[in-house]
């Protein structure tokens, strides 16, 4: 499903080059639930951005569904991204639109007809437990609720992969656990879920595969485990 083959990424800065990822090789199967953990500067976010094809690796290849994403043409990138649901720490909701419109927006971008949008949006809102709040604006929701809307938006187009970057970073422990339960629920429907986080508590609770990055290198890859402290 997702394969990183000897991937390195070096940033060129004013004060020399910084190697964010060093020869990283990783394979994630279809339907897996994986945590990518590590301290700040360990390369988690670089990995996340590479998987979204926001930037290119300095060396190595990344495959998704057996396709080398490095070989995608610029005009093929939007279609590639439609196969990935994304969730961010800061939710990234459109503040001036309702919950319904925020989720419908994802469907409109890919050209889903209006009559189907209503049903699809209400279905995912039901899944995240916010069907009664479809008219609310993001500012009227709690942090946990906003993240649930973001999750609903990420899965409304049924992507085979869901990437979450610090999805619990702005949430209290109760809401964090709820979001994790939702991610697990989504994973059980067959979606491959990759969560980048440094939240030790939820990683320990979930007992899923944990890939630990340190200074751009994979230092451990536990099939079923907790947060590894380096």
């Amino acid at each position, binding site marked *: 499903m997702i394969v990183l083959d000897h991937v390195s990424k070096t940033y060129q800065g004013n004060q020399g080059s910084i190697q964010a990822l060093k020869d990283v090789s990783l394979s994630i199967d279809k339907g897996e639930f994986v945590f990518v953990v590590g301290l700040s500067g360990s390369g988690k976010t670089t990995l996340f951005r590479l998987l979204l094809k926001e930037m290119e690796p300095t060396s190595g290849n990344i495959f998704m569904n057996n396709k080398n994403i490095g070989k995608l043409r610029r005009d093929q990138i*939007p279609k590639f*991204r439609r196969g990935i649901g994304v969730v961010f720490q800061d939710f990234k909701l*459109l503040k001036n639109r309702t919950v319904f419109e925020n989720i419908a*927006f994802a469907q409109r*971008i*890919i*050209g889903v007809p209006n009559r189907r949008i209503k049903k699809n949006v209400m279905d995912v809102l039901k899944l995240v437990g916010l069907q009664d709040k479809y008219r609310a604006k993001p500012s009227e929701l709690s942090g946990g609720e906003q993240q649930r809307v973001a999750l609903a*938006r990420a899965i409304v187009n049924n992507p085979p992969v869901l990437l979450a970057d610090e999805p619990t970073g702005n949430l209290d422990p109760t809401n964090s656990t709820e979001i994790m339960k939702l991610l697990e629920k989504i994973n059980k429907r067959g979606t491959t879920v990759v969560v980048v986080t440094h939240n030790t508590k939820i990683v320990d609770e979930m007992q899923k595969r944990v890939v630990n990055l340190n200074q751009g290198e994979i230092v451990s890859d536990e099939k079923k485990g907790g947060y590894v402290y380096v």
Partner: protein
Amino acid sequence: MYSFTNGIRQGIRNIFKNGLFSLASIGTITACLFLFGVFYCMVVNFQHIFSEVETTVGVTVFFEEGTGEDRIKEIQTMIEEREEVNEVHYTSAEEAWKLYKEKAFPEGDNEVLTNLDNDNPLAESASLEVYLNDAGAQKELVDYISAIPDVRKVNASESVANSFVSFGRLLGYVSMAIIVILLAVAIFLISNTVRVGIDVRRDEITIMKYLGATDFFVRAPFLVEGAIIGLIGSLIPLAAMFFLYREIVKFVTEHFSALSSLLHFLPVKDIFIVLIPATLIIGLGIGLIGSYITLIRRVRV
């Protein structure tokens, strides 16, 4: 379909969101296209008046002694066949004498002159008066006629023809230069307006990119914004020109009646049949180019 309607809706919204920048852009395009209109009116009216004057700028051809009327008519046909020639008028020796008499003695009662009728002193003064379509081609024509056998002398008022041509060219160059500078300013301002719009909507654009929006979907609202600004900026000067042109023509005709025989202005219809589409296309073009320049630099998926 949604891309299209979304583009229009968001584009209109952008204009109001960046109200001041939009107004500045519209103002510059208006100024630019107003000047374009003014220069266009000046140039076409000048050309119109010039073309009328051109036909009065003539070349007079005199012949060698003993050149018969048949030969003169033959030369007349040769000259008439040339493209730059509008009209050729033949003045026989008799007509030349008659004209001289009328000019010298307007009362027409001088017996001495009447006695000379049978011994015409201007017997060798038959001439051809040649009127041109294009004063710029006068030198070429004079060279051509001078080379024809039996032609003694060619009189031409070169300085008049040359000054008409140079003034026409100068006006054209100056107006082109001013318009090009204003176009560049307008494009720069529109690209800035769109840049502010992009900055305001940076988060939204980022979200769109993550959700798999195409370049067209993200860029369409900004292109619509540029196009609408360009169109508004072209409609305002058109309306102003339409009103002002009539008033100015009326004013000049009424207050400078001495010039009325020389200044024949083109009717409003003849001016605007070209000015309306040209201004709208330029306005739209400025708007689209201005936004596109910013978009290719700042919005990429």
